[in-house]
Structures are given as C-alpha cells and as structure tokens.
C-alpha cells in the first residue's frame, strides 16, 4: 500500500505543505490528532500533526519544516510521488465544544498545527483570536488561512520585520490586559514557547491547552517513548494526548527528553541513505 502526494506547496523557504491521499484517515481526522508516516522501507516512523483534512476528497494535509533526515527527504519529494506508510488519525482530538472565546497561539510551524483548531472553533461559532509568531516576516505562513478562521489575527515577529516586534507572549499579555476574557488559550509551537505562554496564562488563571510532539514509534501506546509528565503522572502523548493541560506539564523534563536522539539526527542527515541521489550515504 502507498499514499500519493496530491499537492505540495512551499509556504516559506523551510516550510512546505503536503496534501496526501489517505481516505480512511481523512474520514476520521479531527483537530489535534496526528498521523505517523514512513517514506520507504528504510524510513523512520515520524509523527506529524494533521493540519487540514478533506473528507470528500479523502486527503489529509500536513505541514512540514525541513529540519531532520525525514523532513529533508520529504522536502525533496514531488506531487505525484507516493510515500509507503501513512497511519492515523492518532491521539485524542482537542476538546473544543465548550469554548466560547479562545486565544489560539501558534509559534512558527506550530501555526500549521493550530490552524485546524481555529477553523473548527470558528465553525462552532466561538470568538477566535489568533496570535502567531515568527522569527521574521519571510517565515510567516498561513496568513490568509488564519485570517479566514479568526475574528482577530495578530502576527508578531522576533525582529519586527513585519512591523510588529515581539513574542507571542507579549501580544497575548496585551490582549488580556486590554480586557479580553478568554475561556481558554490553546498554544502550539516549540516547547519553550508553549512554556512561556503557560507562565503568562498561569498569572491570569486562564486554562491553557498545549500540544506535545515527542519522539514516538508506533503512536498507539505501545513503545512508551513519548512519555510526558503531567501533574506528576506519566502520560503517553500518543494516546493520552497529544494535548495536555499546559499548567501541569513538567517542562524541564520534556525539554530534556526532547534532546535524547538529537546527536543521531545529525548523523542520520550526514551519513544516512540518500533518497535524493540514491547514493549509499548523503555525504558520499
């Protein structure tokens, strides 16, 4: 079995979108869930959060940043080509039905993952403020899409190159201080960003959901590699999450755990089998 890439689009120099034919996954996918894919026989199983889905077309969209072996190899693939394995939807959907007014925070690539949440909330009639943050204006993604599914969209950049300088936490604080009363904040992005958002919302007592994305193999509760400590208890991001109460996450442990396979990622990029040239090693 294989899964066809029906569309591929670059969103910025590092980030691209892939729409993949997977009718069974598309039929069941909900915001907050993820898929696991494997490019070919030699590939690693890598989780990607579902960014969008089209039940009628039978496609699932994922948004990818080319940072490691698998993501760089995916970047080299074209529409029309196929990947070998694509399984899902995995994890629990984000509970959204109870929210009337939400702030959705997307940090960098996290914006792609926050998009389906915003879309669903808007469709449920909630008031949605979206705050997205990027290092600079070249890296901004999904601006039009987010605009379409939010009541208010604030885009901020670390260097101010889009005219608004600062972190997502600065913008969130401003909104709250200006009197916006959010029932819930949903923060998706790098661990340090999610932790920073949680530190802000803790001060204002706003329930905050974060999306964890640890290394995992099966995505069904079998390997236990995706352990996250939540409120002192060990949870599996794959089946108990990937969304958790951000105020209860042990961020220190999560940050340290995220480093476990870092040295291997570098080696894999340098010495791994090259899918682009077909050479035995990428450096060969």
């Amino acid at each position: 079995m294989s899964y066809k890439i029906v569309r591929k689009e670059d969103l910025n120099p590092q980030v691209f979108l892939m729409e993949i034919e997977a009718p069974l996954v598309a039929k069941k996918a909900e915001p907050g869930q993820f898929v696991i894919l494997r490019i070919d026989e030699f590939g690693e199983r890598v989780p990607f959060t579902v960014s969008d889905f089209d039940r009628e077309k039978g496609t699932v969209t994922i948004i990818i940043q080319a940072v490691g072996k698998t993501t760089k190899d995916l970047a080299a693939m074209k529409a029309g080509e196929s990947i070998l394995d694509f399984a899902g939807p995995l994890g629990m959907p984000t509970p959204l039905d109870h929210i009337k007014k939400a702030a959705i925070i997307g940090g960098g690539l996290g914006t792609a993952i926050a998009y389906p949440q915003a879309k669903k909330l808007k469709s449920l009639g909630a008031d949605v403020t979206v705050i997205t943050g990027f290092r600079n204006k070249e890296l901004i993604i999904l601006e039009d899409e987010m605009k379409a599914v939010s009541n208010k969209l604030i885009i901020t950049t670390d260097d101010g190159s889009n005219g608004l300088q600062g972190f997502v936490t600065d913008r969130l604080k401003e909104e709250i201080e200006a009197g916006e009363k959010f029932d819930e904040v949903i923060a998706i992005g790098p661990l340090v960003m999610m932790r920073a958002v949680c530190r802000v919302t803790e001060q204002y007592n706003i329930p905050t959901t974060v999306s964890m994305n640890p290394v995992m193999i099966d995505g069904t509760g079998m390997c236990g590699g995706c352990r996250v400590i939540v409120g002192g208890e060990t949870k599996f991001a794959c089946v108990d999450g990937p969304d958790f109460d951000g105020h209860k996450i042990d961020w220190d442990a999560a940050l340290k755990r995220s480093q476990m396979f870092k040295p291997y990622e570098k080696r894999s990029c340098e010495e791994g089998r090259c899918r682009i040239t077909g050479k035995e090693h990428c450096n060969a």
Partner: protein
Amino acid sequence: MPNMSLTKNPMPAQAPDVRNKNFLEVATGYTEDMAVDEAQRCLNCKNRPCMTGCPVAVKIPEFLALVAERKFEKAYEKITETNALPAVCGRVCPQEKQCESKCVRGIKGEPVGIGRVERFVADYHIKNGKEKAIEIKKNGKRVAVVGSGPSGLTAAGDLVKLGYDVTIFEAFHTAGGVLMYGIPEFRLPKNIVQKEIDKLKNLGVKIETNTIIGKTLMVDELEEQFDAIYIGTGAGLPSFLKIEGEALNGVYSANEFLTRINLMKGYKFPEYDTPVYCGKNVAVFGGGNVAMDAARCAKRLGAENVYIVYRRGKEELPARKEEVEHAEEEGIQFKLLENPTKFIGDENGWLKGVELLSMELGEPDASGRRRPVEVKGSEHILDIDTAVIAIGQTPNPLIKKTTKGLETNAKGCIVADDLGATSIENIYAGGDVVTGAATVILAMGAGKTAAAAIHEKLSK
C-alpha cells in the same frame, strides 16, 4: 529399532563470543543427518503423550516417523495440517514445558528434540519445498482478523482454508506483530516470519497494514462489513516500574528498545533512519524472555556491561532455561535478588545510575514462587547509562475504549470463553489480549480454537 541415545543431538550454534557481536541467528539448525538421527529417538508411543502438550496438537510421532524415513516434505505436510507457522514454533516455542515435557524418553535421559526437528523440517521446506496449490472452496462469508501476530495469523490461516474471505488489519506498517517487533533477528530471523506471512497471502488472506482498529476504523464498522471478527491484538502496552527518574533519557520500555532494533532495524542505523541509543552500561529490569532478548540485543549493540536485574532468584526466572543459558554464555551479568528503587540522572536529564535494594526470598506467594522481601538498609548504586524495563505488558486499551458492550476484566483483558467468544455476538478474541502476556504458541492455539468456533457458528 529406535536410537536409544539418552541425549538430544546438540543444536549447532554460533560461538558465544562471535554471536554476541552480530545479529545473525544464534542456533544454526540441524543437518539432515542430525534431524534423522534425532527423529529416530522417538518411540512412537501409542497414546502420544507429546501431542497433549502441544497447544495446536501437531501430530508429533507421525511427523517424526516421516523424518526418520527422510520424507521431509511429507513431514512438513503432516505438521502443517495443524500448525500454520512451523518455522516460528520450532524456534520460539517453550518445548521443554510443552511437548517435550511429556515425552517418555525424558523420564530417563533427555526427551526427543521435537522443536529442533520441527525447525529442521520447516527450514527444509523453505529451502527445497514447493507450495502445493490448495484447493479452497469459497463459502462467500467474510471474517476480519484484528492484529497480525501469531494468534491472528493462525486464525486467518485456518479460516481461509475453510473458505472464508479473510482480511487482517494491522496497526503497524508490517504484519507479524511480536514476531516482527519483539523477538530479535538472532532468535527468529525476520525473513522466516515474512515467508510464513507470504504463504497466507498466497492462500488469499488480505492484509491491511497502517490500519488501527479503534482509530482508523472502529469495530462496529467492521461488523457492518464482516460476518465475524477475531481480535488478536496482543499485549502491547508496556508496564513501567513507577519509580523516580523513569522519564530520564536512556530509560526505555522493552517494547521501544526492541521495536527500534527489530522492526525499525535500528541496529543498521544510519543505513536505516531509526536510531537506537545504547550506552556502555546497560541494565535490563525483569527476568522473562523479553528481558533476555533486550539484554542480548544490548550486548550486540556494543554495550560493555549488560545486567539483568531481577528481584527474585535464578530458579524463579520466568525466561526459558535455554534463553538464560544463551544470555549467560554471551556475557550477560545476572544481578539477582535486586530491586530498583529510583533512577538517578545528571544535570542534562541523562541516566547515570540506578539505586538498587537487595532482596531475600521469603514464603511462597500466590504464584507459588518465593516472595522477595527487601533487606533493610541495603541500598546501593549501580552505574548505568541505559535502562530497559521489561517487567511485562498489558493489552492495548484502544479497542476496549471504542467498542461498546465488549466486556473486559480489571486487567484490561478482553473476556472470552474457552472457544474465544466475547460478550458481543460473532466477535471472538484470543491470545495475549485475553490471557495477558503469554507465549507465541498459546496465542496460536487460541487463534486455532476461535477459528473453529467461528466456522461452527457461521455454518449454522
């Protein structure tokens, strides 16, 4: 006249200090002459005690008699009348607790090496045999099998031969379940498992990989498309020690460690993309076959010191004796009567040691094994950089959580009767998902029983 030697023909194997550096199969298998010689030790007892010890009732004396006459292909046909996976069973069955434990020759001397001869026959067939086209009369009924481990494969094999249209659903990208992700290459080569699976495909069994029942498809959706369902999803949820430091880097569940190595071929990184971190000092916690597998893998990945840490004594180790012996020969160090109390990490979150508490054996507990009791004040530190927790698995709750009316017990196992029937009509279950973690052959036996029960039910 039978061969009256009191001992089995020894199994040829790679030398311990050679094999603990490679992933090639440890036991290299009997030659034709060895197999014939061993088969001739069978007394061909009229009441066939050995067969009562086999969960799938292989016609043991009959196949041994055929081997003794060098009719290896005929012997293969005899075995496969009741056992769909002989190459697997010949390698991983605990024969010493099953068929061979009942062998009359074992009263004085060693029993007939039934498992070794079974393996020879299966390997002979793989090498020399031709698949005979089996004529299957389709009955137009459809059965879904959930999980492609030993239980599911056995049920599927029996059902397809009875004329059912069988589809297996597998969550992973590869069929085979624990035979692929759990048991290492050096004990059960993956090409052997693949050949057994290919045989089923040739019989017409369809296998849908990447399909997680309870996520991708629900059981009630399967009920709409199939006349019956067999659930053989195994015991896939790892148990942890629930002690301090379990989230440190370098601490694995046995499932993760073994899956990275076996299914994802992490031992061939970076040719394969999936890495497996294995340090110099590795402790495996637990005393079962999974623990032995993990320890022996760690050794092969280059660890200098590999410890099995087990809270009871050597006599109580639940692993097969052969596995314990193989591990010892390969240089695995046994730290018996020791129990971990906490993992110790460095400032960057990496494991650097484990605190152990010595134990002594007290009175027998409910399992009949002597209960380990802590020795007060005996805390001491073992320096390790990798820990593998192999203290057992429980069934995955995905199907339980998403299937209304499916009865499960306190341990999360599906409740099924002796024939595999569950609380929902036409849904059967068997193997580890019903019994909790057990053996390959018991799971196969359950698959066989349920296949017969499904046939009986659907034929009415």
